């Protein structure tokens, strides 16, 4: 059982990083707030609790890998990586600016980045390749990947899901950030992805279904997934809300890829600061 204090610490970290995500996108006046806010609790669970990593040695061969397939949610990843010390926090202000390190979508040249995203669906096939290499080299590390629910409309996701099962990759753990909304509307209206739980079960995966904003459930799911080792890949269906934590961004597709203006930014920060982390989920 994970200690309550630890979970509370993680929740506080997530609140702090929600603030940074919004500030980063506001300063750049460009970026994707909705999916970054839905993903951040899981990223905190991964980077501050689960992943076996060393920020001083980003390319440590035995590290756990994290592939952010939904690369537009780079603000969530960058705030975490900066906070973990992969690079200086001063880089954050250069996000999406010419001549600076932090590109709109992650690049492998940024320390701590294990996948250069931006084209949806590709991350899962890349994670599959890493997982195959790790098995070949008899490494004990795990390969984590995060996809969005709009993203799984891409056929590649199902090609890779079939292959991960075929190659019995129990070192591969995929998280579906099921935030229900994509660029032009609700996922169920743009192209309904149906019962994803049944779909991945039918593809031969272990499936864990959780509330992806409930830190207690996140750490429990990550523990369970990383210990599964039953010759099957694992899917964590992380039920989330796009824009979580900022009421006017929640489930609002307009904030998929739009930066808040000054008024919106101030009001968003106010809301974040008022979050009661004990009750947040």
């Amino acid at each position, binding site marked *: 059982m994970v200690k309550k204090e630890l979970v509370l610490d993680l929740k506080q970290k997530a609140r702090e990083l929600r603030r940074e995500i919004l500030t980063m996108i506001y300063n750049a006046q460009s970026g994707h707030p909705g999916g970054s806010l839905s993903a951040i609790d899981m990223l905190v669970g991964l980077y501050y609790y689960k992943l076996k990593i060393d920020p001083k040695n980003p390319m440590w061969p035995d590290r756990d890998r994290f592939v952010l397939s939904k690369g537009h949610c780079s603000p969530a990843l960058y705030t975490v990586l900066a906070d973990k010390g992969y690079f200086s926090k001063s880089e954050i202000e250069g996000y999406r600016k010419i001549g600076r390190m932090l590109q709109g979508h992650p690049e492998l040249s940024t320390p701590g980045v294990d996948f250069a995203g931006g084209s949806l669906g590709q991350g899962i096939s*890349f*994670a*599959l*390749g890493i997982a195959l*290499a790790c098995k070949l080299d008899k490494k004990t590390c795990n390969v984590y990947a995060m996809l969005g629910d709009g993203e799984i409309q891409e*056929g*590649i996701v199902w*090609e890779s899901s079939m292959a991960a099962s075929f190659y019995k990759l129990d070192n591969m753990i995929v998280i579906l950030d099921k935030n229900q909304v994509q660029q032009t509307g609700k996922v169920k209206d743009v192209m309904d992805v149906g019962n994803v739980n049944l779909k991945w079960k039918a593809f031969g995966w272990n499936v864990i279904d959780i509330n992806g904003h409930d830190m207690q459930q996140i750490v429990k799911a990550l523990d369970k997934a990383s210990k599964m080792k039953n010759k099957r890949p694992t899917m964590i269906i992380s039920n989330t809300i796009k824009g979580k934590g900022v009421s006017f961004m929640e489930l609002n597709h307009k904030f998929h890829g739009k930066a808040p203006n000054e008024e919106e930014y101030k009001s968003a920060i106010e809301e974040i600061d008022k979050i009661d982390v004990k009750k947040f989920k």
Partner: protein
Amino acid sequence: MPEQKAATRDGYGKALLELGKINLNVVALDADLSDSTRSEYFGKQFPDRFFSMGIAEQDMIGAAAGLAFSGKIVYASTFAIFSERAFEFVRNIISRNKLNVKIAGSHSGIATGEDGKSAQATEDIAIYRALPNMVVLQPSDAIEAEKMVLALADYKGPSYMRMHRNPVPIIHDANYSFEIGKGEILREGEDALILSTGTLVHESLKAAEILEKENMNVYVANISTIKPIDKGLIIDIAKKTNFVITAEDHNVIGGLGGAVAELLSEEYPCRMKRIGIQDRYAESGKPDELYKKYGLDAASIAEEVIKFVSKKG
């Protein structure tokens, strides 16, 4: 002594197998065409290092990239045409990240024959050439294909190697030394320069023999690295002849013809003729019938060269 023949894909399979024996870091993937691409030679010998990806080229390219990111030397093969299905994966994961993946596309060109339009890739050089960081190669015979596979193992970066279905004459001996970026003069002359690549190297050599009977002596060069192209060789000989012809089983747009036109128009403008597929799709048929009909056989090349050079002045 009868002419020895082999397909470039045979050279690929043979060299990949040899490479597998000496380098344990080499892995290979295929998308249900390993018998045709010959990657099965490697697959049968090293099943642990061979990944059958099913009929899923995008997944093959994505997984190849992940393996390369993990330090493997990766060879991924399928038909040239189907590699194009994963083009945006090649662009966004492999070339963008300079990952060490060697893509091998077999059954390229209209010489693929009877399967018809759907199987005849005649734009692959053009698209891969437009990607930064990519090396683009096309062997002229099985020996050169073998040497390329070995040279690529020592080259760290993305590449596309274009291969062919049908046996062609062996024009290199076992001591041939292939170097990425170097062209090869196969025949010297003074009246014109034929720059050829892949299967058209053989047609160009035969065309040179026909031209000799017409009292024309032409250079024939094998441009087996299309990117980075051998600027020095091409400009040097262009200066000697002032008539440059390119010959390839590929669209004249963006292939060897495109690459040479780009180079010469900037560095040494001179008369140029591009022989290849004239921006259209071909059809089913026997490879030699198709080459004749679409103007890629030795007789058609010779005829074009005569017409081109006689317009002189």
